[in-house]
């Protein structure tokens, strides 16, 4: 004979949230910010091949923190969704908000109904054009979605990093300046992050359809020193 113990919904949600927060806090944070010509995403990542930031579509990028296997599956689903939607309709019909909503639904479902909540936080960034605005959508582990105005921080230490970056100039600056602020905010006053531990990517119009590009260590060093 088995015993079923009653667990109040409040308690269950609290337990699940704590579990997800603990998992997310184990990894390093990511900061994404809008600069004068695009969006820059900066992650602290010691691996050069297991990426946290990735291209989804022509003007959409993805960033994830937490458990790699969980957010990488969401990344793949995002690319499939975007390519499938663009194939069915047109490339201009692929919208970051729709994707962020799907992520929020799935992550939210897993939080309340899954065997365990996903230990991830997701960012969907969109570079604006004449049809759409530049957007940073953050999807938290429990499925809440937020539209972040100037920058977004994901990960365990998000509040502290957010405070540090919020203190910088509000009007969009150049890539070099914004990247510098982002790295300083991620590192904090007491340490410096070596360039080899930074994963940096941008969304910027450079005359071609695809706007995503990764910045290698040399490019990052040059931007940070200039």
């Amino acid at each position, binding site marked *: 004979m088995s015993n079923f113990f009653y667990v109040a919904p409040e308690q269950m949600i609290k337990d699940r949230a704590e579990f997800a927060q603990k998992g997310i806090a184990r990894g390093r944070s990511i900061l994404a910010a809008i600069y004068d010509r695009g969006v820059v995403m900066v992650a602290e990542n010691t691996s050069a091949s297991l*990426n946290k930031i990735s291209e989804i579509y022509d003007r959409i990028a993805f960033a994830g923190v937490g458990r790699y296997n969980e957010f990488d599956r969401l990344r*793949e689903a995002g*690319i*499939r969704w975007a390519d*499938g*939607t663009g194939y069915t309709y047109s490339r201009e019909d692929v919208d970051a908000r729709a994707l962020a909503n799907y992520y929020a639904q799935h992550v939210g479902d897993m939080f309340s109904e899954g065997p365990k909540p996903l230990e991830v936080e997701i960012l969907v960034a969109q570079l604006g054009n004449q049809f759409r605005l530049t957007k940073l959508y953050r999807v938290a582990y429990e499925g809440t979605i937020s539209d972040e105005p100037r920058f977004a921080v994901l990960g365990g230490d998000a509040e502290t990093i957010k405070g540090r970056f919020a203190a910088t100039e509000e009007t969009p600056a150049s890539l070099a300046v914004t990247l510098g602020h982002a790295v300083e905010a991620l590192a904090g006053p007491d340490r410096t992050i070596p360039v080899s531990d930074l994963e940096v990517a941008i969304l910027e119009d450079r005359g071609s359809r*695809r706007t995503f590009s990764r910045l290698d260590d040399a490019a990052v060093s040059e931007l940070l020193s200039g």
Partner: protein
Amino acid sequence: MGLPLFRAQDDPGPSFVHFADAAGLHGPAAFDVGAPHATTVVAVRYVGGVVMVGDRQATGNYIASRDVRKIEAADRFTAIAISGSAARGIEFIRMAQLSFEHYEKMTDAALTLEGKANYLSPIIQRNNLSTPLVVLPLLAGWDRGHQVGRIFEYDGAGGCYERQDFATIGSGSPFAESALRLGFRADLDRAAALELGALALYEAGDNDPSTGGPDFVRNIFPMMVTVDENGFDELPVDETASHFRGIAERRTATGGVAGSTLR
């Protein structure tokens, strides 16, 4: 479409075609509706790259269109050309472009040129064996690993064959091929390969009713592209125009015959 999540054992991987199958994105097999078709496209290897020249005419029972683009960049280092059914061909180009980019985004690595060539085989096989709207593509590109231009042609069942010299597709092939066989040399440079490709296409347009030659009235000329270490490059109209004006002037001067040399 919802968020396409798969369990690890059902995952279609980085192949867009496998994903499209799993997600049911393909339409039903087509039947013969007398769709516009016919073409000539030639590809020529030269030292440092490949040239592709293709006509612009879509032909049904009459001329359906005079400015079709039959050559497209499948990605930065790959050109793809189509012959056969226009409807299926355009769909084929879309699928190829999407598949190569999809693979690159999923894996963070570009497919090799040979990988791209092989990937198209089963797509051609499936199309051609399931519908009468046959598509025959031609793939040419710059192999970044081996630093060489390469050409791949296909048969109707999807068989993929690499060509060391040149390749032709479409109804004007016999005429284009004859010109290429006489004019091809292994040490062609870019300019000579472009000129030979233009001449082969002129011959096809001159003899095959379903291949559009240069249209001096409407200022529409066959497309000419090169793919080399700097990637895909389409020649602007004034350059393609000058190639075909040159050929037409020489032919006019000799009363319509090529003469003893290739000209």
